[in-house]
């Protein structure tokens, strides 16, 4: 395995960021996109090479993680140190491939999509930074290193979401994304501190060994009745939940669509949101030995998020928003799958598999949505309809993606979701039923989207000469479409499993009947309601009444958060603190000043200008001194 190659994978996008960011327009002009794409292409090729190299190496009977290089970046005094290094193991190889692939697609897509933007080169620079951060995150060999790139992912998402910086909405969304994830990162940070103090190391491999060693487990401390290890892991999970938009920290993700659409594709498919899942997967060995409470925390939050987001997705009318909630829901699938521990660790493989397939079809969906939005100049469903004829390529790939996400065989999503459900069925029945219901809802809202965009009502606009999109846009769509069809056939369990040994996940066709049936039911329902324009949706919505309204308003989670920040942070803490500073502490200082002034004013009568009074003071002075002396010292 070539170390240089692995280092180059993240460094190339970074290089593109530096070049484009500093050189800017002057040096590259419109060629900025090409340079970035070229860098990305090389990265992708290298990543493929690394993955093939790694998975092709059968010398051992299991895939083991290897730290290919590492140097101390920041030593701490107590033996801990942040190493910058690269750990290559199955999920790293997988993620390297996924991230570079999706990013490459986005790069190419944007060549046309972002053409003519004033800050074209900056856009590509930020894309490079974003990709770099994510790649750095996946190759991290050290818990702190992952935190570093974790934060960089956060900030690059801030930059990209806020790309249209003159729009107030973009600013608000960017801030929200950053602050919410930052809030979660607090948990991550403290988790790191807990774990590192327990394990006395920050390197993943050593961390796992130290913390799972019998010596540690027997001596592990407790805090409030829960083992310190579990505390640490739960805290880390908060960080993961923030990045991965788990309830109740999911609020930033739907708003993040304020950025350019290809960026949404990148965020939703391959980078930011899967970072949380990746983190939990990275620490999976620890989670698997943690207390059951932590595991069920992960699985229940994941499952709840899945259905919760699916319900909201059914009611949204902005197509990017629907896709965003669908992402939240799908990430929920991955998360709960990780949380359901079993002897064979099928959940791990399933989750990673779903991450893989989801990346492809979700990128496809967003990019396609981008094409559609450019075509109709609107995000709203009611402005669309009847586009099937006008946009044949988009139509087909979109349909493929919808089928995939709905879990219809033989598309990618079917295989991965099947594994997840199977694992849930075997180990946690309640979650299985929630997941099953969510599958149905997924199929429903995705096809609601599909039918509303492409069928429903005829397209009115007289855009005859209007093209569907340039080839730079359509080719990535087609590549991703092919991927959507084929990705499911990858023998995923052979390569990625919790213990590194090949894992044969059987497809149980009998079991599959249920989920597929539910999905088909959802599709049919959607077709019935949305294939032709009708009043059925309104009536149904009215039938659900309050519940519909609540879902439409995203169950008011945003408002609750807003109330919390405005009411508690600003009004209850910030304002009193600022008031206290200006009015209490400052008054003390001012008070000292004015006390001196008034004392000065008070004694001015002493200096009366009368000679005889001066003499009197003189005499008083002597008398006082003498009497003080006589009283205090005289006896001695």
């Amino acid at each position, binding site marked *: 395995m070539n170390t240089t190659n692995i280092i180059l994978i993240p460094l190339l996008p970074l290089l593109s960021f530096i070049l484009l960011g500093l050189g800017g327009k002057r040096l590259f002009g419109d060629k900025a996109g090409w340079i970035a794409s070229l860098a990305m292409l090389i990265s992708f090729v290298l990543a493929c090479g690394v993955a093939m190299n790694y998975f092709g190496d059968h010398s051992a009977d299991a895939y083991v993680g290897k730290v290919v290089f590492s140097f101390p970046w920041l030593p701490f005094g107590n033996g801990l140190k942040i190493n910058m290094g690269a750990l290559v193991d199955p999920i790293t190889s997988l993620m390297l491939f996924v991230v570079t692939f999706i990013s490459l697609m986005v790069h190419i897509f944007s060549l046309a999509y972002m053409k003519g933007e004033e800050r074209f080169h900056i856009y590509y620079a930020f894309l490079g930074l974003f990709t770099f951060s994510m790649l750095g995150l996946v190759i991290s060999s050290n818990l702190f290193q992952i935190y570093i790139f974790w934060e960089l992912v956060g900030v690059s998402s801030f930059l990209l979401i806020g790309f249209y*910086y003159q729009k107030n909405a973009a600013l608000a969304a960017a801030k929200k994304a950053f602050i919410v994830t930052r809030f979660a990162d607090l948990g991550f940070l403290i988790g790191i501190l807990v774990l590192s103090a327990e394990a006395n190391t920050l390197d993943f491999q050593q961390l796992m060994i130290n913390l799972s060693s019998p010596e540690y487990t027997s001596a592990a401390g407790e805090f409030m009745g829960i083992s310190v290890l579990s505390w640490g892991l739960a805290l880390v999970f908060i960080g993961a939940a923030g990045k991965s938009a788990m309830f109740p920290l999911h609020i930033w993700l739907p708003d993040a669509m304020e950025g350019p659409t290809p960026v949404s594709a990148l965020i939703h498919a391959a980078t930011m949101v899967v970072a949380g899942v990746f983190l939990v997967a990275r620490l999976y060995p620890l989670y698997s030995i943690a207390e059951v409470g932590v595991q069920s925390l992960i699985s229940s939050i994941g499952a709840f998020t899945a259905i919760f987001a699916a319900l909201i997705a059914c009611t949204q009318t902005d197509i990017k928003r629907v896709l965003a909630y669908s992402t939240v829901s799908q990430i929920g699938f991955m998360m709960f799958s990780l949380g359901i521990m079993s002897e064979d660790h099928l959940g791990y493989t399933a989750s990673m598999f779903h991450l893989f397939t989801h990346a492809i079809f979700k990128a496809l969906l967003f990019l396609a949505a981008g094409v559609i939005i450019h075509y109709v100049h609107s995000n709203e469903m009611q402005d669309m309809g009847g586009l099937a004829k006008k946009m044949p390529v988009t139509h087909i790939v979109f349909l493929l993606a919808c089928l995939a996400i709905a879990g219809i065989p033989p598309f990618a999503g079917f295989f991965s979701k099947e594994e997840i459900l199977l694992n849930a069925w075997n180990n946690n029945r309640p979650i299985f039923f929630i997941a099953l219901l969510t599958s149905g809802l997924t199929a429903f809202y995705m096809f609601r989207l599909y039918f509303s965009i492409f069928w429903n009502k005829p397209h009115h606009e007289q855009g005859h000469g209007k093209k569907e999109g340039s080839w730079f846009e359509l080719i990535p769509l087609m590549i991703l479409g092919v991927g959507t069809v084929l990705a499911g056939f990858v023998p995923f369990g052979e390569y990625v499993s919790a213990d590194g040994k090949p894992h044969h996940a059987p497809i149980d066709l009998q079991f599959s009947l249920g989920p597929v049936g539910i999905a088909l039911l959802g599709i049919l329902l959607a077709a019935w309601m949305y294939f032709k324009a009708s009043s059925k949706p309104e009536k149904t919505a009215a039938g659900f009444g309050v519940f519909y309204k609540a879902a439409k308003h995203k169950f008011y989670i945003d408002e609750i958060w807003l109330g919390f920040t405005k009411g508690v942070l600003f009004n209850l803490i910030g304002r009193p603190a600022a008031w206290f500073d200006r009015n209490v502490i400052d008054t003390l200082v001012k008070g000292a000043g004015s006390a001196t002034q008034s004392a000065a004013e008070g004694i001015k009568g002493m200096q009366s200008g009368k000679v005889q009074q001066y003499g009197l003071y003189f005499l008083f002075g002597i008398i006082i001194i003498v009497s003080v002396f006589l009283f205090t010292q005289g006896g001695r």
Partner: protein
Amino acid sequence: MNLLWIVGVPLLTGLAIVLAPARHARMIALGGAILQMALVIGLYFSFTHEREVGNVFPLLFEKQYQWFPSLGFSLHIGVDGISVAMMMLTAFVVVAGVLVSWKMEHMKKEFFFFLTLLAFGAYGFFMSMDLMVLFFFLEVAVIPKYLFISIWGSGNKTYSANKLALMLMGGSALILVGILGLYFSLPPESRTFDMVKLAETGIGFEIQRWVFPLVFVGFGVFTALFPFHTWVPDGHSSAPTAGSMFLAGISMKLGGYGCLRAATYLMPEGAHEYANIIIVLASIAIIYGAFATMMQKDLKYINAYSSISHCGFVLLGIGMLTKTAITGAVFQMVSHGLMTALFFAIIGMVYERTHTRLVAQMGGLLKVMPFIISAMFIAGFCSLGLPGLSGFVAEMTVFVGSWETKDVFHRTATVIGAMSIVVTAVYILRAVGQVAMGPLVASGEGVDDARWYERWSVIILIAGILVMGLAPFWLYELVSPGVEIIVNQFAGK
């Protein structure tokens, strides 16, 4: 390398400024500042070279000159890694400060003279190993600040300048009483102001017990120890740009360095005795400063209050008394110095162009001044602890070091400190986002971007931030032996 050159150059620069015609003042000041930077960087290299060839003396380039010998003073100078780091910080900020003030018109001769005087005080402070000399240099750096604010300042400058000067002088009064008390409490034969000797012979616990709080609080005033921080917002907001840069970038560091060198190093038992109080106060400063910042409307106030919060980390690190945490405190001093100087430089530039510092009256400025606003983003990100920039390194080191002590109290303090990173994100993004993004405001129409001197000033500071943020091991190697000596003081007891 003779350290006297490093204090000599600013002194000679100052003299040259006084003697030369006013129109040359800025050139001389810039030349002097660059020469200082070259010297300090040279010092760094010869320092590391000495270390590499195996010179393990705690202090290098040590010299002892006679100065009021009959009173027990001596001009004892020498540097360890911490001093070198602080001096590099000073050199960077000085160059940037001179560049930022390039277009200064009003009484420019005096302005640059005071700048160099401040630099003189700061360099001298960081290299002195004698308590009285340390005190002398500390005081030298106070009055130029007052004049900066009251002559070249803005807003409620009289009040701010008075508050600053009187509070800082109050702090140094405490230090003076502490130092004198320390000196005269010692048995006559071991009376000295020499810190190295004092550390060797040790100071009785009964003395430390009452001297430590005096000295620590005294220096604490300089570094915005809660509740003595109230000069910070007013002073910074009224000062001219370079003044704010110096104030926050260097002057507040004098306090942190003093807390470390004069209080903690000399009086480890006293530090142990009061560590918990320091931690409580520092935690309050961190979180309270952060929340107070959130409510500010003026950019300078925002940065000033955030300085309270950030300097809290310095004190928190010192209060934790572990090697890592103290290293983190030193990191935080360097980092905050660079970052806050950058922030103030940017605020000055923005103010010069839009004639307002109120966040609400700005918006969309990224469009018209991409360079300045990008730098502002970098400063902001550094402030909120983005990896790759210096703030992250410093804060994380403090956190890791604080977490080392395994009891609920220390860890609670750490968590409180860590909470501030969220609040910091909130206020930084609110402010910077509002200034940079959104629709362009009318006052921003047609303004130009940074001019060459502004560019260079920004670039120098960003370079410092990046170097520290990207290659912290470098600073660690420099600083850590020095910290070790301080920590060994505890270990020995």
